[in-house]
């Protein structure tokens, strides 16, 4: 279903991934429901590419990224990395896989131990997973600091002595320590000032070229994703509603949610604002513990029609490499049936 273009191999394959968090209530802590944070998503990430994962807060991006790295015991579905099924792998076996898959977090402040020096933070994964000692270890730390543009003189300083952008570089250096192939970047620039964001994004791109990295780049910033991603997956309320190559997605979004999301981005161009037709969605996103019947977007979709409130649309490849989950893009015969 997600055949890689002839020249590319699939590094990460996610099928029908579900991550539900149980909700307990009352004195007896009865299980009364589930937060369906990720509710059946499928996508591939090709070797050496960047897949952007976009959507509004709470739609399940972080949960999806963490689930793909098996930071959770997933509810259902399969995850293959380089063909190896890790969906039900035990933690001990996973530990050995860890070096190849890493994560960079949004908040560099919160993800770095304030009591460790920069060398300690970057060296920690080396101590856990490699036998590097003494000068070999120190050289590797320096090498990593060089790679992310941190001055070697800073090795003995503490995270609080650094700015947000520099702290993000520390987080990236740490993620690189064990020669990973795949890095989930969860909103790595969201906490940074506009003038610093480009510095970090360019660094991520340089590192990708240099080390042949594959990224899942999670972000709510659609313009930055257009810059960095090769392909983009759009999430809404626990589901991936559209997956497409970057150019196609931005030039001609197919899913009504993708259309609304793109049209809501305020462009830094006053002339465009005066002329652009906007799709303004009404209402708020429903709760992931109680998604609507039918299509998850049916309560806000400007193009909703009868079947949307009854049946959950299946994702379909409407053009090569382009997957859309929307009844408007159903098989012609299926659409005919519903009209009858």
């Amino acid at each position: 279903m997600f055949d890689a273009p002839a020249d590319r191999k699939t590094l990460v394959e996610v099928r029908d991934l579900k991550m539900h968090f149980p909700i307990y209530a009352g004195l007896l802590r009865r299980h009364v429901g589930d937060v369906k944070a990720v509710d059946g998503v499928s996508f591939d990430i090709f070797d050496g590419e960047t897949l952007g994962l976009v959507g509004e807060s709470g739609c399940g991006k972080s949960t999806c990224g963490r689930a793909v790295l098996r930071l959770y015991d997933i509810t259902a579905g399969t995850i293959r990395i380089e063909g190896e099924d890790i969906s039900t792998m035990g933690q001990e076996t996973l530990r050995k896989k860890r070096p190849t898959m890493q994560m960079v977090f949004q908040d560099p402040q919160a993800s770095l131990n304030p009591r460790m020096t920069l060398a300690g933070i970057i060296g920690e994964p080396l101590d856990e997973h490699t036998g590097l000692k003494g000068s070999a270890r120190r050289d590797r730390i320096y090498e990593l600091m060089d790679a992310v543009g941190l001055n070697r003189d800073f090795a003995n300083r503490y995270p609080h002595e650094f700015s947000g952008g520099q702290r993000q570089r520390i987080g990236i250096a740490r993620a690189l320590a064990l020669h990973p192939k795949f890095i989930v970047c969860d909103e790595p620039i969201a906490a940074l000032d506009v003038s610093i964001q480009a510095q970090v994004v360019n660094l991520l791109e340089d590192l990708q070229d240099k080390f042949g990295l594959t990224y899942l780049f999670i972000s709510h910033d659609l313009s930055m994703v257009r810059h960095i991603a090769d392909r983009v997956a759009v999430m809404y309320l626990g589901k991936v509603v559209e997956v497409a190559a970057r150019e196609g997605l931005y030039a001609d979004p197919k899913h009504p949610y993708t259309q609304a999301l793109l049209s809501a981005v305020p462009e830094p161009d006053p002339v465009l604002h005066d002329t652009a037709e906007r799709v303004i969605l009404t209402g708020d996103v429903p709760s992931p513990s109680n998604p609507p019947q039918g299509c998850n977007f049916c309560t806000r979709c400007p193009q909703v029609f009868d079947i949307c409130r009854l049946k959950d649309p299946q994702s379909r490849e409407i053009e090569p490499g382009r997957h859309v989950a929307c009844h408007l893009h159903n098989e012609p015969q299926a659409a005919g049936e519903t009209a009858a």
Partner: protein
Amino acid sequence: MPDGALPVLDVKDLKTVFRTRQGEVHAVNSVSFDLKPGELLGVVGESGSGKSVTMMSLIGLLPSPPAEVQNGQVLFGGQDILKADDQTLRAIRGARIGFVFQDPMTSLNPVFTVGFQLMEPLRKHMGMNKRNARKRAQELLELVGIPDAGQRLRDYPHQFSGGMRQRVMIAIALACDPQVLIADEPTTALDVTIQAQILELVKDLRRKLGMAIVWITHDLGVIAGIADRVIVMYGGQIVEHAPVRELFANPQHPYTRALLETIPKVHGERDERLRVIQGQPPMLGAEPAACPFRARCTHRLGRCDRENPVRVPVGPDHDAACFWDAGTGGARDV
């Protein structure tokens, strides 16, 4: 907005300093701007550039100590409100200048219903009785697009979503028909589709009510969408000021120019590589004796290290604080 109309708010040479244990922090340096009737003035700048402190200073909301408004004049309704007593200031803040902040939960009181919080200023500043205040409160919620307004008056803030809470904040700020609305990053914490709703609402309210608005944001896209005029802040100072179209079409200050080049866009051409502004925003401390942008500026001249540039006219209603002249690409002739 009629040109030359008397401004509703006229801020001159505002200077705010924090006295901290580490020394003085000159957070707002000689900031001057005016606000014309009915216009929307956008204030854009990165975090720490002095946007909030400027607005808090001018309506006396900063705790002193550590803050000290050392200089300036803020003319509102013919009166310098920096010299006004507390009671006058409270009356102005409650009724004639409305406020909306980034995080509604810090300004809404969680233990009172939204209805109560809407009715309070109406009763206090407009002298309405309970019945009239309730009626007006419902109208206000309807005005800002909250469904079932009558019912929702009885709800508490936590029962509203983020976007709806921000609407409630706007309703409270508008309760007493203020002449000026100051909105400090009101959509920064919201998702884009909810932000788009709020921006539409503001455009609609401007058509209906016609108050003047100061809208603070770090997002140039938001500014492009709603502002008439824009001031750009950097390091506690205004570095550029222009009508919105002029600013985006013809930016003059190296910071504004770099900022516009560094942000990627959703439409149009896509650069293979992002332009970078090197370095970090300045840490504010002592009064700057040089250009605050110089360490990151690609046009830096010898003079930039010795003097802090003042704003000079660079076009109609357009000024920039810079020794470099974007027109000639050389030193400015002043």
